[in-house]
């Protein structure tokens, strides 16, 4: 009963948001829905009963992690969103970047869209029927495209158009892949529920299954931002409003990742883990490499964060592709990356509101001008590049260990090289922005805009020194789902 509510509550609240005229009432509903969703997700994650065969929605360890993570980020984005919307001008005003007019979408469209995005992401996470999951993942694209176009500038329009077209085409390719899974099933009873697929995994036709895997990897990989299909991502994530960027990078990419994981789960059960794994490692390394190159010469700090998401999606793919302890590392890294990246995008929103530019060269002395956000910006940089004591250090190191244990030295070498390249690239940009003298006097920041990033920074640090028992259990169980070692 909990799971349908997890989808229905944000859906109902989202539809109601379009209709409610009063801003305070709508925001109260927004917060109420977000908080309810978090409570329901936490309850569902802790009490997950065994699923009967053939259910369409359900939670296992893997989806439980992603569900609670998504919900947590959404609550953070909600609180930040109030401060963000207060800051946003109602009347049209010139854009600081290219002078074109910013004519923000009305607030009900924003609130409704973001709640529907939560609903579709939840459905994508809990669905255990591959075609239903496809419907949900495509629906997330549709719910988020208007959010990217929130500012109604030329740049955001271009970003939204590319996002909509590329992701829709990608996901159409994934649907072909799902057809091919059906072709791989022999016998009369063709059922696309995960339980049924895993049960008859031994009898699946390997040739069809590998074709299906390639199609689904390309399709959902587009949405997940794996290079070379990532080209829409820096545009969309940099042009979207900051709370939306945080959700796109932190939560939505994970949903597409989950789509690939389900396919890899079926492949692993069919004894084809190595086939899928090698492809994932290849795409992962490519993503890290390309992201590294573009971060090195980046002049826009939101785009820098977006490319860093491409890099981290690559890391996740490599971890899963390696298997073994890499799976544990990859899922832990998904949690770490989401929390840190959401915090960075929210902080970037604060910088943008203060300095009115996304150009890295025009910002100096952020630590002085914005005492809290400036420090968070540096801390976030250290966390996202995997420095101790943050959780990302542990997860990135676990994946490195997996490459060494399997003696895949080329992967080890390239993986470490790209991590160093990204570290160098980001440090040059971030430190120059944060340090130095600022002409501007320090300003007090409203609590709504710093609370969520502060909490996320706290979580990121905590995960570096201590993994809570329940999370550790879930991570181990999730790794076992994909054939990881039993601990």
């Amino acid at each position: 009963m909990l799971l349908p509510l997890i989808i229905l509550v944000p859906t109902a609240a989202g539809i109601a948001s379009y209709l409610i005229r009063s801003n305070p009432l709508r925001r109260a509903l927004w917060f109420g829905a977000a908080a309810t969703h978090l409570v329901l997700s936490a309850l569902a994650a802790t009490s997950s009963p065994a699923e009967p065969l053939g259910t369409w929605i359900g939670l296992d360890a893997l989806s439980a992690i992603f569900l609670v993570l998504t919900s947590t980020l959404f609550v953070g984005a909600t609180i930040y969103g109030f401060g963000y919307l207060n800051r946003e001008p109602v009347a049209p005003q010139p854009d600081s970047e290219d002078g074109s007019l910013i004519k923000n979408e009305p607030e009900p469209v924003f609130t409704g869209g973001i709640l529907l995005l939560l609903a579709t992401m939840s459905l994508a996470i809990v669905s255990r029927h591959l075609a239903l999951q496809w419907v949900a993942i495509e629906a997330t694209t549709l719910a988020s495209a208007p959010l990217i176009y929130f500012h109604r500038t030329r740049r955001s329009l271009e970003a939204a158009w590319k996002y909509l077209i590329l992701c829709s085409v990608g996901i159409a390719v994934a649907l072909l892949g799902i057809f091919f899974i059906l072709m791989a099933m022999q016998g009369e009873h063709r059922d696309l529920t995960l339980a049924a697929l895993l049960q008859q995994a031994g009898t699946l036709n390997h040739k069809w299954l590998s074709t299906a895997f390639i199609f689904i990897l390309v399709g959902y990989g587009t949405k997940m931002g794996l290079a070379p299909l990532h080209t829409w991502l820096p545009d969309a994530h940099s042009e979207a409003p900051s709370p939306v960027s945080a959700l796109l990078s932190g939560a939505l990419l994970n949903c597409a990742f989950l789509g690939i994981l389900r396919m890899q789960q079926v492949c692993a059960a069919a004894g084809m883990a190595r086939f899928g794994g090698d492809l994932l490692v290849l795409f992962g390394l490519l993503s890290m490499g390309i992201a590294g190159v573009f971060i090195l010469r980046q002049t826009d700090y939101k785009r820098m964060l977006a490319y860093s998401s491409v890099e981290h999606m690559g890391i996740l793919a490599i971890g899963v592709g390696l298997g073994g302890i890499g799976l544990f590392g990859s899922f832990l890294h998904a949690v770490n990356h989401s929390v840190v990246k959401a915090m960075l995008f929210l902080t970037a929103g604060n910088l943008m509101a203060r300095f009115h530019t996304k150009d890295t060269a025009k910002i100096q002395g952020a630590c002085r001008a914005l005492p809290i956000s400036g420090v968070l910006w540096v801390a976030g940089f250290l966390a996202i590049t995997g420095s101790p004591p943050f959780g990302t250090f542990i997860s990135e190191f676990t994946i490195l260990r997996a490459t060494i244990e399997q003696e895949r030295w080329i992967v080890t070498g390239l993986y470490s090289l790209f991590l160093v390249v990204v570290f160098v690239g980001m440090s040059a940009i971030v430190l120059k922005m944060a340090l130095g003298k600022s002409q501007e006097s320090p300003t007090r920041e409203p609590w709504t805009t710093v609370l969520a990033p502060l909490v996320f920074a706290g979580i990121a640090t905590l995960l570096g020194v201590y993994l809570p028992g329940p999370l550790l259990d879930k991570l181990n169980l999730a790794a076992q789902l994909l054939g990881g070692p039993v601990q």
Partner: protein
Amino acid sequence: MDILSVLLILSCLFLLGSSRLHVAIRVVAAQGFLLGILPVVRSMPDITAGIWILSVSTIVSKGLVLPWLMRVCLRNSEIRREIEPFVGFGASLLCGTGLLALAVWVTIRMRLTQSEAPAVLMISSFFLVFVGLFIMVTRRKAITQSLAYLVLENGVYGVGVGMSLDFPFVVELGILLDVFVGVFLMGNLLFHLDLEFEHMDVDKLTELSDLSESAATAGEENA
């Protein structure tokens, strides 16, 4: 069913060779009708209520509403023709025959393993997918891209019908709804594209690209 499939193939060849956008919209609408009839013909003689609903909603959405939306977009803009595609119309037709051969090859490969799918339908559906992708990358106008997306989706739908994959009814409707809302959003964005850029040429959407930026700066340095 063979007649329907052949008509689908012909409609694609027509799309490849035609520069007039309102004709192209009409062709895509016709495809919507053909695809709507397809599941009914495929599952004759025992047709369930679900199939009827699906067929009618396909015809209404892909055959009537979406083409109507595209026509509105077209009327609002000044565009009548697709001019200067990256690949000329004659060459497109030539590529089209190549794509058709590719579709035949894919279908034959599939039949080698297993399949009760009717060959002609599979060929035409894969052809639709390939033509959709081809048009998407070779034409300039944003409106053509959304038409191409519809053609691609039509092809995927045809593959599904051809394999007679009985998805649960809810999922089928969900897929249809997704496509519908997707194209609807594209139409909405098209309207704004026209207002903001005063044109709908996709190759001019380059303000955000990292590559073009570097190309521009490199050009300046050389000069």
